[in-house]
């Protein structure tokens, strides 16, 4: 059974989102998603400064076998990417909830309201 952390927000496509300040969030993929993918060999991340729209793809996480698109739960600007994942993509398998992909300055906080709670996400997996 995969771990799901209380207090984070989730979406059906298995991304988690963590609020780190009023308008900044970290986005990663869940442990369930990491297990399903198998060994992650590459994480294709956007550039700092890229503008994201909720529901659109911002990159991909790739196992040996396939690439899975990453879908942004929110709109806003990418203000940081996790450089550690560039050299060590396996961190996603080791600790999915610490291996955040991008930090986003959100432009529409209302988008957070439609995301799933830990309880709701647990029912999906």
């Amino acid at each position, binding site marked *: 059974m995969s771990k799901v952390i209380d207090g984070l927000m989730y979406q059906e496509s298995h991304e988690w989102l963590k609020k780190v300040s009023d308008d900044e969030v970290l986005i990663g993929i869940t442990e369930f998603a990491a297990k399903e993918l*198998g*060994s992650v*060999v*590459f994480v*294709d991340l956007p550039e700092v400064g890229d503008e994201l729209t909720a529901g659109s*793809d911002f*990159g*991909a996480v*790739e*196992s*040996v*076998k*396939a*690439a899975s*698109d990453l879908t942004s739960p929110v709109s806003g600007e990418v203000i940081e990417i996790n450089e550690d994942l*560039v050299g060590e993509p396996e961190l996603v398998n080791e600790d999915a909830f610490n291996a955040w992909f991008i930090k986003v300055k959100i432009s529409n906080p209302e988008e957070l309201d439609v995301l799933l709670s830990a309880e709701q996400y647990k029912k999906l997996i």
Partner: protein
Amino acid sequence: MEKIKQTCLHEQHLLLNAKMEEFAGYDMPIVYDNIKSEHIAVRTNVGIFDVSHMGEFFVRGTDAERFVDHIFTNCVIGKEGGSVTYGMLCYENGTIVDDLLVYKYNSEEFLLVVNASNIAKDYEWVVNQTGDFDVTVKNVSDEYSEVAIQGPKAEAVIINLLGIDLRYLQFFHFGTFQFHNCQVLISRTGYTGEDGFEIYSDTSAIRDIWKIFMDAKITPCGLGSRDTLRFEAALPLYGHEISDEITPLEAGLKFFTKIDEENDFLGKTALLKQKEAGLTRRVVGIEISKMAIPRAGYKVFVGEEEVGYITTGYLSITLNKPIALAMINRPYTKKGTEVQIQIRNKFVTGFVRNKKFLNKNYKTEEL
């Protein structure tokens, strides 16, 4: 919808906690532990694959040799009994029905080993070509199970674990051996670019062999590593490098046809015509300069012009760099040509190269 089939080793895969997926109508193991370690086991040591989903047809009769030579791109006339030949079946228009191995027992008996995904289509097609030939075609796919034992230590572990001496079995040859009161067919063939063997028998012998290998801690390998291994060796996969829209010449498999020889075969006229007119596209290798992984289906551009598509691509486990096979329009098939691969919303630069990503490690010396 038809029920998903299981191989005779299905229960063993579940016990090993394999990740299972439907492939060609079978519930097959994709990966047991991880694809990389399974891949490396085969490159450096040995691994065992359940490939019981493969299809087997017997062609028997006084015209068997003439018939197989008629439907098969490669030559079987004059080959000795106990030889295995790789080649394809082609439609009249030169595109590929399937690729297969042909096992020649003698001029009146052949075993055709075809792709699981094409069994029904191939059987119908082969039977439809029999016409006036004195042959019978029998689909024995459900009676035959198969394991592949691949890697530089394959010969040694089979000798040790099964007590079958294969030292004198030459590359692309087969023999029948006694094992636990069963007949097993073993060929020195495979789909990994390494030395190795494919063993065909009934379910009880294959189950026994699997158990002996598991007890000896030989690495079980799934279809995931089967694909990464065959890809690095630039071996084609039906539906990717070859298909019913691609000819052997376009796939770079002319060597496995007899178009320059006298023997006729189905599709030959079309292939000769294509050769004369000149190919318009061909499967090539592509190497990428930065870290990005080209996947099957991604589009390839030169400037604004779409010039082809990726047929298979991976971050190569052996070479640790992204490489791909791609179907590219002429004249962009020339080595060193700079191309742009569309990977999601980005364009990544790559270069056309030969398909020889790594040296094959076959045991081809005369024994």
